[in-house]
């Protein structure tokens, strides 16, 4: 009833997701025009499909926390910590020579361990936010540093390498021409979409984000909802950590440090309301595509990495300004308040 309900109220062109679809198409077309031979090459298209799931999965983790009006700034820290722990299992217990069933078994153990680390880290965030009542932005900023710190302490700051070959399956192989990371992202995106729109939990998440006080007055078990949200975000981050680890064929405490800003940017660009109460996975997916097209395009145009960070930051501010400015209100005067 939720999403489908509000959709019937807006014509298609008014839906924020429609605007996003147009943006994605425009960016794609622009890049195709600027650099037709290289951008449209099969090689570039597959390379993009391998690249974006890393930060796209982190953006999904960001989405669910942002829908509650919170945020998770520890996603990259969680991803790296879980990757470092999985890597420790794969290098010291399995070793690079492991093959066959033994390697598969150790990989499974490593995956389970990384998910457990993600869940535990998310639980820790959830406790900070619920029981201790810290603002999510500060709680996860701090915990993110703690997680990264653990990863540094375990590795001494250097990369952990020497995995069995099977590990590369997660990040580098395809099933029927579809990259495995892309499949992972698609599964998680669909799961999150169903979670947010078809379950009582998802509806409670959105309602809590819309008005936490009213959620309390409506006898919603707020702490349990928030705790689960941060655990889910932690586990998603761990999956992203596995993809990063497999693609880099190593784990390091400071991989993907630019992904945090990117994940926030994608969630906001995807129409998730940073004040809570609105978030649709389809919007986030479209934002992911736009960003990847833009990123690859800039790459081909040989724009430097530093300039790219600048562009991401500026884009984030621009989208926030566009989304939060009350254009009708600017014309009519000031914001409406309650009637007396």
């Amino acid at each position, binding site marked *: *009833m939720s999403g489908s309900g509000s959709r*019937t109220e807006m014509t298609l062109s008014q839906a924020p997701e429609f605007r996003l679809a147009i943006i994605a198409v425009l960016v794609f077309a622009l890049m195709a025009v600027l650099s037709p031979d290289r951008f449209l090459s099969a090689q570039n298209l597959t390379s993009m499909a391998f690249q974006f799931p890393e930060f796209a999965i982190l953006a999904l983790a960001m989405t669910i926390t942002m829908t509650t009006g919170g945020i998770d700034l520890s996603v990259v820290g969680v991803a790296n910590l879980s990757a470092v722990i999985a890597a420790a299992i794969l290098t010291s217990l399995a070793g690079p020579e492991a093959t066959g069933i033994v390697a598969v078994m150790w990989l499974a153990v490593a995956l389970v361990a990384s998910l457990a680390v993600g869940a535990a880290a998310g639980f820790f965030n959830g406790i900070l936010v619920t029981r201790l009542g810290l603002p999510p932005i500060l709680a996860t900023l701090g915990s993110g540093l703690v997680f990264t710190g653990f990863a540094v302490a375990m590795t001494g700051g250097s990369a952990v390498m020497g995995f069995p070959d099977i590990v590369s399956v997660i990040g580098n192989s395809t099933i029927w021409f579809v990259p495995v990371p892309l499949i992972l992202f698609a599964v998680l995106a669909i799961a999150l979409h169903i979670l947010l729109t078809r379950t009582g939990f998802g509806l409670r998440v959105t309602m809590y984000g819309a008005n936490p006080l009213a959620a309390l007055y409506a006898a919603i078990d707020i702490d349990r909802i928030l705790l689960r949200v941060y655990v889910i975000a932690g586990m998603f981050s761990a999956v992203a950590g596995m993809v990063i680890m497999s693609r880099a064929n190593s784990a390091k405490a400071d991989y993907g440090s630019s992904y945090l800003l990117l994940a926030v940017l994608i969630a906001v660009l995807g129409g998730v309301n940073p004040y809570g109460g609105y978030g649709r996975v389809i919007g986030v997916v479209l934002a992911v595509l736009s960003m990847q097209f833009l990123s690859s395009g800039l790459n081909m145009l040989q724009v430097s990495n530093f300039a790219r960070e600048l562009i991401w930051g500026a884009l984030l501010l621009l989208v926030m300004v566009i989304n939060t400015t009350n254009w009708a209100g600017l014309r009519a005067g*000031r914001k409406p308040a309650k009637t007396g």
Partner: protein
Amino acid sequence: MQAPDTPAFVEMTGVTKHYAGVTALDGVDFTVHPGEAICLAGENGSGKSTLIKILSGVEPASDGEIRIGGELMTGHTPRDATAAGVLVIFQDFSLFPNLSVAENIAFANELTEGRRIYSRRHARAVAQRMLHRIGVDIPLNAKLETLPVAHKQLVAICRALACEARLIIMDEPTTALTGKEVTVLLDIIRVLKEQGVAVIFVSHKLAEVLAVSERVVVLRNGKKVAEGDAAEFDAASLTRHMTGRDVAEASPGAFDGSGEMLLSVENLQKQGSFRDISFSMQTGEVLGITGLLGSGRTSLAKALFGLVAPDSGRIVVDGEEVPLGDPIASAEARIGYVPEDRLTEGLFLTQSILRNVAVGRLQEHERNGFLDLRGLVDEAADWLTRLKVKTPSITAPVQSLSGGNQQRVALARWMARAPRLLILNGPSVGVDVGSKAEIHDIIRDLGHQGLGVIVISDDLPELLATCHRILVMKGGAMTDEFAGGKISEDVLSQKLTS
């Protein structure tokens, strides 16, 4: 003294205000002359707050002209209004509880004079001068939070004077005062008028300020429906103009005692809020709880639903003790609570009407975590129809509704949960007159259906029209109890303030 020869201080002509889909003010003319006291009367939702907000620059008017001191104001801000000498004293006074009396009085003055460095001596001098002006004596060093309500109000008046107020607007000035304190206030108002300061009383109970007023203006549904010499009005005619009805709604009378024991509250206690509260009620009974602002009525209401954790005592519903301070356990014990402030506590404003109702019934429509959307929607839609929520679409955001319809949505959420006991805090605050009567019908009907209903309100006619029994709270304790139909508004009002 209406003095047509002196130029008006405030002149509002054809002032209109539209909020999303609602016309809160409709072409209202309103003038204030220097040294004049005006009663601006109207029920909740009549538009009186909107008029004040527009005059004081909090809200822009959609249409119309506003002149203050002869000068045309366009898009003026609260700062501009203050500079022009228009000051509002809100019901909560907006003072700083942790600062001294002198600091509170001089604070705004320091700002308007553009002083960048605070001088304690200067502040004390200003404060002393203002207190002297209204002829009262309050220790300058006292921390504001230690003062009684009446003194806080006087501090607020002095602060307005310190800003060289030429018009002081007082929002519900008497609601928190005892009878004796009201007399003191009225004397001070007379002094202010002699000094050329105009006063507007904004209130829905004006009988007591009628004595010092020259003129009465009555608003109803955003329109000015009556204006004239204060001498021409009495309490009855005011009520008639405000409600548009001749007779008050009939009381349901005393409860016939035919129900079963539903709720018993034993020695409920919360430090600083309420003490030793004991009462019981039956199914089918509508119980009113009233008291002045700060009497502990809202804390008690929240405690009954677990939103405030009492220090000691027992709440028993249907023979089972309900854990204290746990709203989820309270909801499971089938207690419902419709809060006073719909906008921040009651509703999810940006969410659909449907969702606002459905959120109360998620658990019942969940199978293995997945929602039975059809069942959930059908049930919510059914309740919206039963409560006659008027809207073109139930998927529109709830903020697009009028106050009365919003309140029905809040009610529908709890009624869908089939509660045994429903606590309604200020059920008709911010609701227009027509909807108010209908909400009262709903409340009486809930009683007939066998629910226990507790109505918490300072709207005495509302309590008289809906309740079988009325409990009065004062300073955190239950002080009186009256059976419905056996008490008049005047007597009840006296019991509240004496």
